[in-house]
């Protein structure tokens, strides 16, 4: 193997990012991943376990880990924390009753040291539903201002159903991660 091909290989590896998608059940994590990958979203069963998708996005390769959000399997989230560059927290903006649960789980997650360096994107999903709270309202309810101020975070309203806002969110996440870990390029 020539030196050049080794260098190319390392370079390619460098451009990889590991993205972890979490959030309560029924928030739309799998739908977001499939939608952004241009796949059919009409038949999606609640995730039992996890899905991995590798997506080429701009000049980066995203390894997206979409982990099921049912209560029983939330305790397994921590198995996926290692080497996460970008964290995506998905919120069902129309599920007002469970926003307390949502905030609790999010802040619990952010205490995790292995995620302390990860950029955080919050998707206020289901904006297409009439009664959904706006991203600003979600930010207040989730008490996002109280986060450690070294954390890079952003909240973006989206609809996995129509696809609106998904690219905006991922653009920010990928740029933020890239500027942090590939700034020597």
């Amino acid at each position: 193997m020539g030196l050049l091909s080794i260098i190319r290989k390392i370079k390619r590896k460098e451009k990889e990012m590991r993205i972890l998608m979490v959030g309560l059940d029924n928030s739309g994590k799998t739908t977001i991943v499939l939608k952004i990958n241009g796949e059919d979203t009409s038949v999606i069963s609640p995730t039992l376990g996890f899905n991995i998708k590798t997506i080429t996005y701009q000049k980066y390769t995203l390894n997206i880990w979409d982990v099921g959000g049912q209560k029983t399997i939330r305790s397994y989230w921590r198995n996926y924390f290692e080497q996460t560059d970008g964290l995506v927290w998905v919120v069902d903006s129309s599920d007002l009753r469970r926003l307390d649960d949502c905030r609790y789980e999010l802040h619990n997650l952010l205490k995790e040291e292995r995620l302390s360096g990860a950029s955080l994107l919050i998707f206020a999903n289901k904006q297409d539903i009439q009664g959904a709270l706006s991203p600003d309202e979600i930010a207040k309810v989730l008490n996002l201002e109280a986060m450690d101020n070294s954390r890079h975070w952003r909240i973006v309203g989206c609809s996995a159903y129509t696809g609106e806002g998904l690219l905006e969110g991922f653009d920010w996440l990928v740029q933020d991660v890239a500027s942090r870990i590939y700034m020597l390029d």
Partner: protein
Amino acid sequence: MEEDDHLPKPASAAAEDAASSEDLDSALQRKRAAMIERLSNLHQSRLARKPDSESNSTSSFLSRFSDSKSSIESTLSRIRQTADPHSNPTLKSELDNVSMSIADLEKLVAENTFSLPSYEVRTCLKTITDLKQIVEQVTCEVIPRKKFSFKNKSAKKITTQNDIVSEVPIRVENNTANVESENSGFRALDSPGFRGKENEVLVKEFNRGNDEEIREFVLSDLRGCDVRLMGCVRALFVHKLIDCKVYVGPVFGSVLIEEVTNCVFVLASHQIRIHQAKGCDFYLRARSRPIIEDSNGVRFAPYCLKYDGIEKDLEEANLGEETGNWSNVDDFKWLRAVQSPNWSILPENERLDTVDISNRDPKI
């Protein structure tokens, strides 16, 4: 050269050949010596240059680093000594500036990791972590976190003020734990729905073709009720139902059911999640596999609802055809190959006949 020897040659050329090969050998040796010399020169010069330039850049970096570190520290101690935090509105922006300069410092270290000895990298990173911790501490001491509250609750604002004062010392010691306990009073349940009813017949017809009606709907805290929802709805949330019968037209998003006991549900939806259900029967049509969690004694059967125009509604919601998924139930509390003891298929002789809810007869 060996090959040359094997070649047939004229005798006169042989002597010449031997002489030229000697010439060649010595030329090669000279060349090699020159190359070695060149290489060692290069090496020497590199050795001579390297430590010098490296230490130069290292020391200049370290001085830059310690300069900004001490400026950050002095700003922080000044902020900390400010007697009354409430009197100084610029405090927050000052703290933000400090965090920004720490971020710059971090960037500086990252840019120089190539040229720095690894020990320096480690100490610098440690310093940065320490600085961040101090900022965090100072922020907690100086700026109490705002409590989230809705504006229309003016009475609550007064208590919020008091809370801030009393909570400051607690936060300093244990600021992360407080994040969750805050805001637990959030109540803004303004989604349309039926709530807190007993022994009633609750009927709702979603206007077809009117976008405004296609949204989420909530059923919560019902006892002994008979609920009939006709037309398409985007999402359905069901919470705390006892002894109810619930008949629902197509839901073209998801249905989330929690804490239901002794109920009958007739539902068609893209996704169905059932939590904490006890002794309930579900007549389902679903595009995907329904799931249960923390449930027991639940039974499943195919969808059996009828009202005027239901075929068109089902078609519109992509639920026109039976998928057979009503029996493909995943139990998150039973991740084994054998059938979960928590659910079963409702025997055919115990199933309801087709339920027609188009006549508003209170008794079905």
